[in-house]
C-alpha cells in the first residue's frame, strides 16, 4: 500500500472525524472569548444531535425528502441557541458559577434528550433517518491529482461548510466591530462597559452562538455518521471540543488545526490496525494518542496566557 493510498484513507477520515469537534469548538470560542466558560459543550452537542435526528425524521415524515437533514441542521442550530439560554441566564444574569452551570447543562441535555426520545419513540433510541447527508465526490475537483483524492473525493459537504465557517468566524472575531466588542467583553468587561458596550447583551449573544455552533456540531455528527440518536451518540466529544478550543488557543484557525489533529489521531486509531507500520503498534497507543499528545502539546508549546482574562467571572456593574 503506497503512501498516497494511506493518505487518501486517513485524511478524509480525519476531516470527517474532526469537523463536529471544530464546529463545537467554534461555539465554545464565542462564549469563552466573551468571558463565559463553556464546559456545557457536551450538552449542547447532545441537544443538537437529538434535534438534528428528530427534525430529520419529522421532515422525512412530512415528505421533504433529501433536503430534510439540511433543514434539520438549521433547526438544530436554532434550538441549540435557545437551549444555551439556560447557561446564559444562569451564568450571566443569575451569576452562577459558570463551571457548575455548564455541568448542569450537560446533565440536563442528556436527561432531556433521552427522556424525550423515550416519550416519542417508546425506547432509548430514535429511529434511523433515511436521508442522511452522504459522502460525495466533488465534481471536477476530485479528479485533481494528489489533492483530489485527499480533499475532494468521498467527502461530506458539511465538511466544506465547516471549513467555510472557520474562516467566517475568524473574520467576524478579528475584523468586525462585533468581534472587537466580543473580545473586549472577555478581556475587560468594565472597560467595555464604559465604552458603551452592553456587556451582558454581548455575553448572551455569545453564549447563544455557542449553543448554535455546538448543536450544529452535534447535529452534523448525527446526520452524517450516526444516523440515529441514543445515549451513546455523543459521549465525550463535547469535552474533546473543549480541548480543541484550548489547544487551538481560542483562535478559529488554531481550532481548525487542533480539530484536524484530533480527527487525524482518531482516524489513525481505527484505521491504523489495517495500515502498514501502524498495525504493529498496539491499538491502545493509537487510541490514547490524541489525549497524550494534547497533554504534551499543552505542556510544551501552547503558552498559558492565551485565555481571555475575564473568563469565568460574572460581570457585576460597578464591582471592584
Amino acid at each position: 500500500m503506497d503512501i498516497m493510498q494511506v493518505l487518501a484513507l486517513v485524511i478524509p477520515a480525519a476531516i470527517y472525524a474532526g469537523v463536529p469537534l471544530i464546529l463545537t469548538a467554534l461555539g465554545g470560542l464565542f462564549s469563552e472569548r466573551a468571558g463565559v466558560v463553556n464546559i456545557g459543550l457536551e450538552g449542547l452537542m447532545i441537544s443538537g444531535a437529538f434535534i438534528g435526528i428528530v427534525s430529520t425524521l419529522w421532515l422525512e415524515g412530512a415528505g421533504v425528502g433529501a433536503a430534510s437533514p439540511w433543514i434539520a441542521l438549521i433547526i438544530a442550530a436554532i434550538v441549540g441557541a435557545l437551549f444555551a439560554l439556560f447557561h446564559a441566564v444562569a451564568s450571566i444574569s443569575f451569576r452562577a458559577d459558570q463551571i457548575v452551570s455548564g455541568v448542569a447543562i450537560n446533565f440536563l441535555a442528556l436527561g432531556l434528550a433521552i427522556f424525550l426520545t423515550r416519550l416519542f419513540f417508546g425506547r432509548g433510541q430514535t429511529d434511523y433517518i433515511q436521508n442522511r447527508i452522504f459522502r460525495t465526490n466533488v465534481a471536477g475537483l476530485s479528479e485533481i491529482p494528489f489533492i483530489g483524492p485527499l480533499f475532494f473525493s468521498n467527502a461530506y459537504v458539511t465538511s466544506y461548510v465547516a471549513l467555510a465557517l472557520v474562516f467566517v468566524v475568524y473574520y467576524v472575531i478579528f475584523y468586525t466591530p462585533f468581534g472587537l466588542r466580543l473580545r473586549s467583553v472577555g478581556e475587560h468587561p468594565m472597560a467595555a462597559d464604559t465604552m458603551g458596550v452592553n456587556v451582558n447583551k454581548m455575553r448572551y449573544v455569545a453564549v447563544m452562538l455557542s449553543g448554535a455552533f455546538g448543536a450544529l456540531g452535534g447535529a452534523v455528527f448525527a446526520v452524517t455518521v450516526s444516523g440515529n440518536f441514543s445515549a451513546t451518540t455523543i459521549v465525550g466529544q463535547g469535552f474533546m471540543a473543549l480541548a480543541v478550543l484550548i489547544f487551538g488557543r481560542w483562535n478559529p484557525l488554531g481550532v481548525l488545526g487542533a480539530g484536524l489533529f484530533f480527527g487525524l489521531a482518531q482516524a489513525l486509531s481505527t484505521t491504523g490496525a489495517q495500515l502498514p507500520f501502524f498495525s504493529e503498534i498496539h491499538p491502545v497507543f493509537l487510541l490514547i494518542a490524541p489525549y497524550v499528545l494534547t497533554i504534551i502539546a499543552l505542556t510544551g508549546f501552547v503558552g498559558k496566557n492565551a485565555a481571555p482574562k475575564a473568563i469565568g467571572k460574572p460581570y457585576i456593574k460597578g464591582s471592584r
Partner: protein
Amino acid sequence: AGNDDNGTSTGDGDGGTAETSDFTVGMVTDAGGIDDKSFNESSWNGIKDFGEKFNLTEGTNYSYVQSGSIPDFEPNLRGLVREGKELVFGVGFLMEDAMRTVASQNEDAQLAIIDMVVMNEETGEPFENVAHMTFEEHEGSFLVGVVAALESETDQVGFIGGMDSDLIKKFENGFKAGAKAVNPDIEIAVQYVGDFNDATTAQQIANTMYSQGADIIYHAAGGSGNGLITEAINRARNGENVWAIGVDQDQYEDGIYDGEKSVMLTSMVKRVDVAVADVAERTMNGDFPGGEILVYGLEENGVGIADSTQNLSDGIEDQVNEYRDSILSGDVEVPMTDEEYEEYLNGL
C-alpha cells in the same frame, strides 16, 4: 416484601382479560436496546410473537427493561425477578455474571440466558433454574462466508466483530472457513470494534476495509454494525460496487438506499425470536427447560441465511444449499475457535 405485590398490582390496571393467560415474562436488554437491529430486537420480537399468539398484554404480561451499561444487568434482572415475573430472559453473553448471581440468590426463579451457558460453580453443572440458549452461529456464518467468496469480485472480504470474545469468534471463524472453502486464496480482513454500540468506529473500520479493496463485509457487531451499513450505502450511492452482510436478523431493509436498492447482500439470521418464543411457551405450559443447554443450529433452523435473496446472483442459493447439506451430514466440520480454524485450514 411490599414489592412482591407490585408485580401483580401493575396487572390490575386493565380488566376484561379473562381469556388471556396471566403468565408473565420479562426481558433485560443489554446496552443496545430493543431496536438494535440485532439480537435484542430479535429477542423482543420473539416475546412479542409469543405474547400475540397467546393474547397477552404488553406491559402487563410481557415487558422489557433496558440496561444502560453492564452494571445495570444485575439490578435489572433482579428487579424483574422481584416483581414476580414467571420467566426472565437475559439477552447476551455479557449477562453471565449477573445471571449467575441472580440465579444463585433466587432458586425459585425461572431464568433464561441467550448465547451463554452459566455454570453453577458449586455443582459444576449449568444452573438448574436457568435455561441456557445457545446457537451454532459458526454454521450460519459459514454459509454467508460461502456467499461472500462466491460474490466477491476483488477476492477480498472483511469481517467486523463487536467485542473480541468467544462468541463472536464463532462468527468470525465460521465466516472465514466458509469463504476459504470456496476460494482458498481469498483475503479476509478482520477487525473488532471493541463495542457493540459504536457505529462510528465501525464505520471507520468499514471505510478502511473497503478502501483496501474488500467489496463484501460481514459484521457480527450488534448496533455497531450500523456503521458498516452506513459506509456501504455511502459508497454504493457513489457508484461503488460494495456489499454488506447482516447478522442476527434479515437486515435487507436497513440497507435500502435510493428508494429501492439495498446494500445488504444477505444476512446470517439467528432465530433468537423463535428460540425465545419456544422457551416462553414451554415455560408457560409448565415445561421450563431449566438446566438444559438448548442448542439451535442449522438443523433446528436456529441459524441460517436470510430470506431476502434479491441481491444474490443466480445459482448462488443452490451452491449454498450444497454446503448446508454437507454441514448437516457432517462432511464439513465448521470451526468455532481460532485453533479449530487453523486445523481446518490445514485440512483444506
